[in-house]
């Protein structure tokens, strides 16, 4: 499997740390030093569906394929206004594809998990050209009266078109059942028989615990992929890590090794865009000409679950 087209889209509204400090008990120095985030883009006039379609359209255009050549649509999304139908169904018509599709929710690790599914489907002959769209609006499940979560997130979408090839080399997925470190509960309709009604509540995050687990498990995934493929950090051109917190990226680098330049970031301008963070960064790096044929790339992400995942590419165009 290889990637032949990428696209991304973020909302038009940019919100800086100073903008947040106007109504939250925080400031630019605190947010920047602890997260690396300077700004994020938030949905205001457009919808998540607009972003998803925009990213998908760009990826298909970049791939050189026609929409009728896309065989399958895989969408990664944690939550959006519609519990049902799935986001893949909602955006299918606007993208202009007619193929089947499905949604996955593997939190911020959704993109790497979707890659694993796409690779399996292509190898099994179920599809030849697959469109993955990661579209997320995490700012809609934060409590905007407190600073712990709301300063971290941004909205956005990233998309890739995949086809047969040999660039995708390996993937490692991890799941450790531990709901309490990070969760968002939606309220559901009650019934006359319900005895344990749970009212929804915004995102809950135990920051320090999450930080430790994220660093420990992501480093394990990456080291596993390196070891299994008889590689060291020196063989890797780019470590493209989930953009949740720059300090987490630095800690993982401290364990895995390699210079800071090999660990690109876009978190400064977008914040944490959940499963869209890696495809957005990939799109920007490809369009900037930073990725060359033969580059060895590790992608690694983690999220609520606790889940984490890492994969290896030997890049080809």
């Amino acid at each position: 499997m290889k990637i032949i087209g990428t696209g991304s889209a973020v909302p038009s509204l940019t919100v800086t740390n100073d903008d947040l400090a106007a109504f939250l008990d925080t400031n630019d120095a605190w947010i920047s030093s602890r997260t690396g985030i300077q700004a994020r883009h938030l949905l205001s006039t457009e919808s998540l569906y607009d972003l998803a379609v925009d990213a998908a359209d760009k990826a298909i255009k970049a791939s050189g394929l026609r929409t009728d050549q896309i065989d399958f649509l895989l969408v990664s999304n944690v939550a959006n206004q519609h519990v049902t139908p799935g986001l893949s169904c909602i955006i299918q018509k606007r993208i202009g594809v007619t193929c089947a599709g499905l949604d996955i929710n593997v939190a911020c690790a959704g993109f790497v998990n979707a890659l694993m599914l796409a690779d399996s489907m292509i190898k099994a002959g179920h599809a030849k050209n697959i469109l993955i769209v990661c579209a997320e609006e995490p700012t809609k499940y934060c409590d905007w009266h407190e600073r712990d979560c709301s300063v971290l997130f941004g909205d956005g979408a990233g998309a890739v078109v995949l086809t047969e090839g040999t660039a995708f080399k390996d993937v490692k997925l991890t799941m450790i059942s531990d709901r309490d470190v990070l969760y968002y509960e939606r309220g559901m309709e009650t019934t006359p028989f319900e005895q344990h009604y749970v009212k929804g509540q915004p995102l809950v995050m135990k920051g320090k615990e999450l930080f430790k687990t994220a660093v420990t498990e992501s480093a394990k995934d990456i080291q596993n992929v390196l070891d299994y493929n008889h590689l060291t950090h020196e063989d890797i051109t780019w470590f493209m890590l989930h953009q949740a917190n720059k300090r987490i990226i630095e800690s993982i680098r401290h364990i895995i090794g390699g210079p800071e330049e090999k660990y690109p970031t876009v978190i400064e301008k977008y914040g944490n865009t959940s499963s869209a963070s890696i495809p957005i960064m990939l799109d920007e790096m490809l369009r900037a000409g930073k990725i060359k044929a033969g580059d060895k790339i590790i992608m690694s992400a983690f999220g609520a679950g606790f889940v984490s995942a890492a994969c290896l590419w030997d890049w080809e165009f």
Partner: protein
Amino acid sequence: MSKIQDKARALIASKMKLDESEITPEKHLFNDLGADSLDFVELSVLLEREFNVKFTETETANAKTVGDLYELIEKYTKKP
């Protein structure tokens, strides 16, 4: 200074981007070495991994100086 302390000192210096000579047992992590709360979490992850130990939340909350960290590591790595 024990080998364990040597390794821990090197790791703390590397993480905090300081010279090893600045990492002495009496140094307060926050007041003297300029650590913030996240540095402390990062340090505990790196030390736990390096020495294959697991600190409790209370232990890490109570550790304030470089010497406290040395004691914590030695508590878990001491052979019976």
